[in-house]
């Protein structure tokens, strides 16, 4: 994959291009609305959804509070089950560990299951620099990789591509990676999926090394879990002789029983299914079944920094379902690439600036990539209060200075002062409605966000005045 996030422009600049692309906006709108409606139905089937959500939040909070204990327990369990555990403080160290492990097998290629963590650390590029080819095997990730592109959604990474583009990519690129696309390939999704099946099968059947992430790791048993749909995950997890899993330290949960919560909430939140087609669970190695060598690489890469922030640490509860992307009005218009990270959408807007810090322009702008409408919080299966973290991160960015940031901070201070004083707020609202004919249609100085939309009309009366008068 040649796509890279280095040198990304700030969010508003990156989003402007996407907002102007009508095809992209139509694709995104169709995708996000389809998944969001299906999700709502799948969730409504469970009468105890809120209790499951609360349990998921509590399990993650409890784990994070005692993360040291559970990581040590996980390590013991994995080692007892025949695995080997490595610890990587940052991306470079994780990449070096994986590259060394692959080289030690004598192999020069690996098959990969879709993994956010390995994308985050740029593993494919690091392996390529060592002369090792890493083949993505998830259909969407294959499309992204063959198209020298970047993923734009956590669940459906190639959602910005339509079928015609995918056919063209397969025709042009498959041949240089392995088995070429069949002659006369059309753009029907079934034919495209068949082309991917044939292209990848030869890679699966000869693969000696598999690389994965994991959705969960169970401390008490040492069990790793991967949720998937296509079967490429099962191929990578069972056919190779060596399996290397790179997993963020926040993916650990304490007990086997804890899994029953996420087995119910993740599929419904993510693909809007009662259960995804395939879920694999493995504990170390099993004689005569699957890889005989298993390495687990535990990745920090900014997670302990995130953990240190009292408000921001809740982002580590994330189980990567992508429900927040599908309900976000900003994501729907801007698309995933504008976020400049493998983690797009609302969760990306709070995760990337914490994992990477806010020194770069893109990361400093991400906390502003939101209207704070709160839909993301409502659908989050582990109840991450994303708006709360966004506001918290805005304060952090504003504290760092810069002209715009100082203005923003002053405005926020004034707003919170007025909100704390009902009489002042009422007077300000009244002043606003009485001068409404004088108001401009656009907010001056608010830049890209307001260029593409108009300010809502102010009502004749403020809500408070209406409530006091004829409204009751």
């Amino acid at each position, binding site marked *: 994959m040649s796509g890279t996030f280095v040198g990304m422009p700030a969010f508003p600049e990156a989003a402007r291009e996407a907002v102007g692309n009508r095809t992209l906006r139509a694709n995104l709108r169709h995708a996000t609305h389809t998944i969001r409606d299906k999700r709502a139905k799948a969730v409504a089937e469970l009468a105890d959804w809120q209790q*499951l959500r609360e349990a998921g939040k509590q399990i993650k909070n409890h784990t994070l509070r005692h993360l040291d204990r559970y990581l040590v327990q996980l390590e013991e369990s994995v080692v007892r089950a025949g695995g080997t555990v490595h610890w990587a403080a940052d991306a470079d160290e994780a990449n070096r560990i994986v590259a060394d492990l692959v080289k030690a097998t004598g192999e020069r290629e690996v098959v990969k299951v879709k993994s956010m963590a390995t994308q985050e650390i740029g593993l494919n590029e690091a392996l390529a620099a060592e002369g090792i080819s890493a083949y993505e095997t998830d259909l969407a990730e294959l499309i992204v990789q063959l198209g020298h592109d970047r993923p734009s959604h956590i669940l459906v990474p190639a959602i910005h591509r339509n079928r015609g583009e995918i056919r063209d990519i397969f025709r042009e690129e498959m041949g240089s990676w392995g088995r070429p696309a069949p002659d006369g390939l059309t753009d029907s999704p*079934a034919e495209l*999926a068949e082309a991917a099946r044939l292209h990848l099968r030869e890679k699966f059947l000869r693969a000696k090394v598999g690389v994965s992430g994991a959705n969960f790791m169970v401390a008490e048993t040492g069990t790793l879990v991967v949720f998937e749909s296509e079967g490429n995950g099962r191929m990578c997890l069972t056919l190779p002789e060596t399996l290397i899993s790179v997993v963020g330290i926040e993916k650990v949960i304490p007990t086997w029983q804890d899994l029953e919560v996420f087995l119910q909430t993740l599929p419904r939140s993510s693909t809007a299914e009662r259960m995804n087609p395939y879920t694999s669970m493995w504990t170390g190695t099993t004689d005569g079944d699957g890889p005989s060598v298993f390495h687990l690489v535990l990745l920090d890469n900014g997670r302990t920094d995130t953990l240190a922030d009292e408000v921001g640490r809740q982002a580590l509860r994330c189980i990567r379902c992508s429900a927040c992307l599908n309900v976000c009005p900003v994501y729907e218009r801007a698309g995933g690439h504008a976020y400049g990270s493998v983690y797009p959408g609302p969760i990306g807007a709070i995760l990337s600036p914490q994992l990477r810090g806010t020194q770069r322009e893109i990361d400093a702008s991400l906390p502003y990539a939101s209207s704070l409408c709160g839909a993301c919080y409502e659908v989050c299966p582990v109840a991450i209060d994303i708006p709360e973290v966004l506001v918290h991160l805005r304060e952090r960015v504003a504290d760092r200075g810069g002209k715009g940031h100082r203005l923003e901070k002053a405005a926020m201070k004034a707003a919170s002062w007025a909100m704390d004083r009902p009489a002042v707020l009422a007077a300000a609202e009244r002043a606003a409605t009485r001068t409404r004919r004088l108001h401009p249609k656009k907010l001056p100085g608010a830049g890209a966000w307001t260029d593409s939309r108009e300010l809502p009309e102010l009502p004749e009366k403020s809500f408070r005045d209406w409530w006091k008068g004829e409204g009751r």
Partner: protein
Amino acid sequence: MEGGEAVTGPVRSARGTGGSSRDRILARVRTAVADAREAPEVTRAYLTTHTPDAPAAVLDLLHENLAEYRALVHRTDADGLPALLARLVADHGSSTVLVPPGLPLEWLGEAGPVRVQDRSASTAAELDTVDSVVTGCALAIAETGTIVLDGGPDQGRRRITLVPDHHICVVRAPDQVVASVPQAMARLDPTRPLTWISGPSATSDIELDRVEGVHGPRKLEVVLVTG
């Protein structure tokens, strides 16, 4: 270079000087949460099942949910099983059928095609030439339409239900059928390799159009055996 060292065998204790990445990460975790409030114990107020405890209704729910995710579902009794399996294999046009080492002999008593015993030496490429595979399961979950394999003698290695394009899975009701995910978790052994299967392999990666069958078996048939 510090860090990145593998831990094998007994976990080594934290090193005093220099510090491995293991030690550094654990120290950073401890510092990060030093002042954090104690997190309360988990309250499991959620339900252990969403379905009334009536075996016939639970089996119907399993049937319905399996079918909704495009598994082909069949019902028979123990006496009718061999004939049904023979018909399913024949209907698929299979000339070879892979069998795990502990599949009950009588199940495929009437099957015409060549039986291929899975051996540890069988390569993935060899498995790729077999037409169908017949297995049992560890259990099935009605609420989600899921079958779970745990590598037992009648299920075999994980790869044999993955590489062939046609998987027939036999579920013995009511013993192997549970209503809910929490009920399933309580019965499964986490030390075994587990594969949860809910319908055939599928993808919605192209414009969200669902396509059945990418890398796993494109045809999943589930036989519910009662009596």
